[in-house]
């Protein structure tokens, strides 16, 4: 198919959940790609600055002459270009709307609430931040019920858009659990999500791109150390 010809590259980092979204989507479509790792702490590469001049962020997808930025936009692009391979977005418009709605919620509300835990100063603030994330997970547990309709993934029998949008955060979620000593996903409040998380991380499209929790935790310590050293909070 002419449209899907052309070299595919992903500019990104191994630790970024947003970069992971692009890689999972390409894996679902069995598309070979070159992964160009940015070492963001050492300064952004010329390629990154040229291909994403507006935001200068990863991920960037380079497909032939096309450059695409913003992880969820990249995932939709991948779904639309490699349209004969397994679909990422659901088929039915209302289910597509539901998947987009929750993906936007994850980016605009839930993930920022998780980041807020690491930035909270003082025990009260930390507890409040953790509480917000837990409430958010209960909502996502309900969303899972509505979207999956008894099947293994948000997308149904296979990983789909919302699985990718949410699942990419599982590495960081586990790091947060390690650092707080609290099981954010648990049998009491989020029994379905707990099982879904194992299924997601074991999936062929995911397992080689999901970073190990230990490695991510070390990386988190390093970033926080650098940020404190640089006088930022």
């Amino acid at each position, binding site marked *: 198919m002419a*449209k899907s010809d052309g070299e595919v590259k992903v500019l990104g980092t191994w630790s970024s959940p947003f970069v992971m979204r692009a890689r999972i989507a390409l894996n679902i479509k069995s598309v070979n790609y070159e992964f160009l790792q940015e070492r963001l702490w050492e300064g952004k590469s010329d390629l990154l600055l040229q291909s994403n001049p*507006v935001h200068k962020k990863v991920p960037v997808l380079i*497909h032939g002459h*096309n450059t*695409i*930025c*913003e992880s969820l*936009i*990249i995932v*939709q*692009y991948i779904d*639309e*270009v490699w349209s004969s391979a397994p679909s990422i977005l659901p088929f039915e*418009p*209302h289910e*597509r*709307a539901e998947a*987009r*709605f929750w993906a*936007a*919620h994850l980016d605009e509300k839930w993930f920022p609430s998780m980041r807020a835990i690491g930035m909270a100063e003082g025990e009260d603030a930390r507890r409040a931040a953790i509480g917000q994330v837990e409430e958010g997970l209960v*909502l996502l547990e309900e969303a899972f019920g509505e979207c999956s309709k008894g099947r293994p993934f948000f997308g149904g029998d296979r990983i789909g858009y919302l699985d990718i949008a949410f699942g990419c955060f599982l590495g960081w979620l586990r790091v947060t659990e390690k650092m707080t000593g609290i099981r954010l996903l648990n049998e009491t409040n989020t029994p379905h999500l707990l099982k879904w998380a194992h299924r997601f991380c074991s999936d062929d499209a995911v397992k080689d791109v999901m970073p190990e929790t230990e490695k991510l935790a070390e990386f988190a310590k390093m970033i926080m150390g650098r940020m404190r050293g640089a006088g930022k909070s």
Partner: protein
Amino acid sequence: MAAEEEVKLLGFWVSPFVLRVEWALKIKGVKYEYIEEDIFNKTSLLMELNPLYKKVPVLVHHGKAIAESFVILEYIDETWKHNPLLPQDPHQRATSRFWAKFAEQQVFEGAWNALCSQGETKQRALQGTIESMEKIEGQIEGKEQFLGGESIGYLDIILGWVCYYLEVWEEVGCMKIMDPVKFPATASWMKRMLQHPVIKDGWPPREKMIVYFRQRSEALGSSSHGWLRV
């Protein structure tokens, strides 16, 4: 029309997000029932249809509710396929979605933050918004008609608030963002938008908007927590 084919739109008279959805429905020629919500006195209907955010717009179709204007626009485009809002080509679709997100986060949020803040915070928000407008100007430059091409499309709809709301916010906020000398392509695009049959007569009454945004910006400017949307 069978009951479940009916389209309902929950809205609020001054919401630019609701206006977007109305434009999209009109472009597609979809008949809908408009239900006005008082967002300061929310009905149980709104709470039931949008339990997470309790906000408008909410589109109801086939008995199911869809919330968030960006999500609703894509739903409308996928459900009624004539007069497409997004381009067909995947790369062009990605580009439209990219600039729509940029416009929302950098121009809309920036202008709103500038409206509702004072002093240094206001200046920073203004500066950021103007820089973002420059990038939007770059996207509009060279477009003879609309961002969607010959007809209005997704990005025109997302940015459409600029054509009327921005000037109201500038007056209320004593600030200047849009400058036809600095942004000539944007200024021409705004003129064409304002003449478009689907857009031209649908704006809320200007004097009411001035009163409303004056009250809102004062209320939000004096509160200690973060910005709320319209």
